Structures are given as C-alpha cells and as structure tokens.
C-alpha cells in the first residue's frame, strides 16, 4: 500500500534547468520519511508532485497502483504548505477544518465528527479551539490547525513542507509529538508521513528514513540508522553537519565505535553508555 514514486523528473515549461531528475522513493504507512536538501533543491516541488498537484515531466507517482493525479486518489495524499497562514481559510478553526469535507459535500453530522477527530489528532482540544479565530492562535497552534484542515481529508499520506519554520523549540516539539502520534495511529490506521526539511538535525530526530536531494537527484537514501552509521560528509550537498553527526563523528575519530539508531540526545547517551560498558567489560 505504499506511496511510490519512480524515476520522477520535472522541469518548468520555460526553464531549461530540470528541478528533479530520476528520483525514486517509497513512503509506507506508519513510517516517517524526511526529504532534506539545501534551498532550491526542489523539495517543495517534489511535495507538490507527490500530492498530485503538479504533473511530472516524466516518471510516475502511484498510490496502490493508481496514479496520484486521478481525482479519487489525490485525496489520499494531504499536503501542508510551508506558510500555514496561506492555508487558513475560515473565520473560525472549525470553519477552516470544514473546508475539505465541504468540497465533497459530506453530510454535516459526519463532517462535524471528522473535524473534531482531526483537531484531536493534532492535539488541539475542540472545545477550546474550534470556535476561535485561526489568527488568534500562536504560530505552532496555527500550523497544527492547518494540519487538522489537511487531516480532515482523511489522507493516508501526509506531506509536510518545513513544518518547523519560525517555531521556537516548544512549538517544534508540539509538532514532533503530533507527527509521532499520526505515524503510529491515524484515526485507527497508520499514516505515512513525509517531511521536507533543510535542518538535518531535526530530520534525524524525527524520521525513520532519509532522502537527501542534491542537484535534483537523490544523493543519499536509506534509514536514519544507516545515515548515523555512515556519517557522510554533508557539506558536499550544501547542508550543515547536524550536531548529532558531529558527536558521532568526533567520537569515531577518537576510536569509538558507536552503534546508534536514532539521533536524539537520549539515544546517543544510551549508545555512549553501552559502548563504555562494552569497553570496561573487555578490559576487565
């Protein structure tokens, strides 16, 4: 049931340079995939393509074997754009989240339940937030409200474009919590989540797998664990070395062999402690 992109290429009609070339990726339900790249690496274009809003120049994007651009299929993929404010259409949060159900003329009772569920899924209590104006909310809350609006389409896949932009650590952690919840349980099923990020640190802490975009191609693809194990030089992709990789690399240079699956401080601490035990056991 995954979302599958094969040999994706894209360039704008009057631009000679291609934005994406021969890109392939898989997004499975319940997994979190991060697409990382420097500015203008094609991240946002990729998301519009995967959501069926843009037609690729060549290649295919399919959900369950059906092309994502067919109308019935498109609603399986939800896209949250970078500027959440540009996606808030209602005078109240409820009205905004109702936008998608209204497009398909869903009956009011079902729509209302859907709205409440979507709000709960993004950790916004309907009783507190539903009747407020979206613009009276904090930056992080607005982004989550916009996410609820997309979830009201009941998509199986959720694409987030730079969801942490402009948020302080508290706001960021709120979104991370929502993403984790959605991956493990979306109204009873698992949602496949793809996050476009320029900050590798955030990507490594959030995702199970990683695609690095450079020059319109996938310069690196694989699991987060594999990335941490390899600790590649990201400077050649115009990215900044994430602090987690920095720690791993610095220790490796001093002869430590760390085995890390995730890039969170806790996971790294665990790996360090277990390595120290391992060393002591050997020396004993």
């Amino acid at each position, binding site marked *: 049931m995954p979302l599958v992109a094969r040999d994706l290429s894209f360039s*704008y*009609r*009057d*631009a000679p340079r291609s934005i994406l070339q021969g890109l392939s990726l898989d997004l499975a339900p319940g997994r979190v995939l991060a697409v990382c790249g420097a500015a203008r690496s094609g991240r946002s274009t990729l998301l*519009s393509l995967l*959501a069926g*809003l843009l037609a690729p120049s060549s290649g295919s994007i399919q959900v369950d074997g059906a092309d994502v651009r067919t*109308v019935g299929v*498109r*609603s399986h993929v*939800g*896209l*949250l*754009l970078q*500027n959440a*404010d*540009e*996606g*808030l*259409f*209602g*005078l109240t949060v409820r009205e905004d989240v109702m*936008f*998608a159900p*209204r*497009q*398909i*003329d869903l009956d009011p009772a079902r729509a209302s339940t859907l709205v409440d569920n979507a709000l709960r899924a993004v950790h916004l209590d309907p009783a507190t937030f539903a009747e407020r104006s*979206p*613009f009276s909310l904090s930056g992080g809350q607005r982004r989550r409200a916009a996410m609820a*609006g*997309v979830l*009201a*389409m009941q998509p199986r896949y959720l694409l987030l474009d730079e969801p942490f932009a402009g948020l302080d650590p508290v706001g960021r952690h709120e979104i991370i919590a929502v993403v984790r919840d959605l991956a493990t349980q979306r109204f009873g099923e698992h949602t496949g989540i793809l996050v476009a990020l320029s900050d590798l640190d955030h990507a490594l802490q959030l995702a199970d797998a990683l695609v690095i975009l450079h020059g319109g191609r996938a310069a690196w693809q694989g699991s987060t664990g594999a990335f941490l194990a390899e600790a590649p030089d990201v400077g050649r992709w115009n990215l900044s070395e994430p602090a987690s990789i920095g720690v791993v690399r610095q220790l490796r240079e001093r002869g430590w062999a760390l085995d890390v699956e995730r890039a969170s401080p806790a996971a790294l601490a665990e790996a360090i402690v277990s390595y120290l035990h391992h060393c002591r056991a050997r020396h004993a």
Partner: protein
Amino acid sequence: MINGSTSRFTALQYRPGDTALHRLDARTKILASAVAIGAVLAAPHPLGYLAIAALVAIGCAVGRIGPRLLWRAFGPIILLFLVGGLLTAAFIPGRILYSLGPLHVTRPGMDLVVRAGVQTLVILATTALTTISTAPSALGNGLLWYMHPLRRLRVPVDEIAVMVSIGLAFLPLLQRELQRILLAQRARGAEFTRGSLETRARNAVALLPPLLAGNLRRAEELAVAMEAREYVPGATRTVLNAGQLGRNDVLAVIVAVLFAVLTVRL
C-alpha cells in the same frame, strides 16, 4: 524567475536594456507621451496620423521594441476594438460603403472607427514604449516630479511617492502569494473545474481570509520597519535615483513637439 509568463500583463512590464530610449529620463518620456497623445486627439485630419505614427515608429526603433511585443500586449484589444467598432459603425447613418448581410458600413461610421482606432493605438503604443523602457520606480518618481506643485494644495506628494514605490515592490509578492493560496486550496481538495457553483463561490470567498490576514500583517510589519528606518510622514526626503536630464532628453522633447505640430497641422 521561475514564472516565465507570457501573459499580457508582463508584456507591458519593464524590460531592462541599454537603448537610447532606456537611457532617457522618465520625465522626458512621460512628457513626450503626453504630447503625442494630445496631438493625436487633437488632429483634425487623418493625414496627421501619419506623422504621429512615424513618431511612434521612431520610438520603437530606438527602443528596439518589435511589433511582436506590441501585438502580444495589445493584439486582443485591437481585435476586440475592430469587431466592436464595425458593429457600432453599422448603426451610424450616412452614405453606405458596403454591406455585410444586415450590417451596413457607412462612410461616417468608418471615419469614426478609424479615428478612434488610431487614437487608441497611439495611446497604447506610447504607454507601452514608456513602461517597457522605464524602470517602475523611475516612472513613479517621474510622475511624482510633475505632481510636486500639488504640494502647495496640501497633496502629500512625497508620501504618495513612497507608497507607489512600495506598491511596485510588492506586486510580484502578491501575485506569488495568490498562487500559493490557490495551491493550498487545491491541496485541500478544491477543484476549480468541477463542483457546484455554490462550492466554487464559497472557495473564492475562502481566498479572502488568508489574503486579507496576510496583507494586514504585512502592512503592520512594514509600518514598523519603515519607522525603524526613520520614516516620518510629511518630512522632507531626498531620492536616490532622482534622474538627470541630458542633451538627449531635450532633443527627444523637441522631436516629439515637432511631430505633434505636424500631426495637428497636416
């Protein structure tokens, strides 16, 4: 820019270049355009139109603005005009030149169409010559230079100048923002080609909150930024690119006036 658009709107837009036309001061081009337009409106005899057409042709040649560009900008307007004009002309009584089924094209009618058509063309062409060869900010400053005497009538010319400059700066931003908002709507399942009229109308209205909120916020942020940079409404200001008049500018005005006189006298 990614939007290599072929829309009519961009056909009139400033195209940077280094022709003699580009190098003329904005104020000169504004004056020349005004003179040309005045002449073509006042010309008593169609023969005068040849003179003004020659002036426009010289302008195009100097500015290296080809007929294709002008066609892209005005083509549909001209066609629309022709059709509308012929229909109107058919209703004016007079000596019939020829008939097209129930429509009779008369001599006075034809005169009217030709006259109005040429006038419109000249107005459009001179405007295009000016806007294509002059940077928007220079154009704004030029227009406002002419408005300075209005200061005595308490018209806030300097403030208008700043507002025009800001408007020009923000235009591309508003265009792109609208595109992104439309994309966001499509991402939420809005189909612009299907759906009931009610739904589509509702979607159009739904564009307002993000547009308005975005622009209100932007206006507030901009006001703060301007204040931080010592902007005081009503205070005297200077302008970086105030423009300089040279020999070519005087020459251009003289040429324009000459042709204008010809137009009116022929």
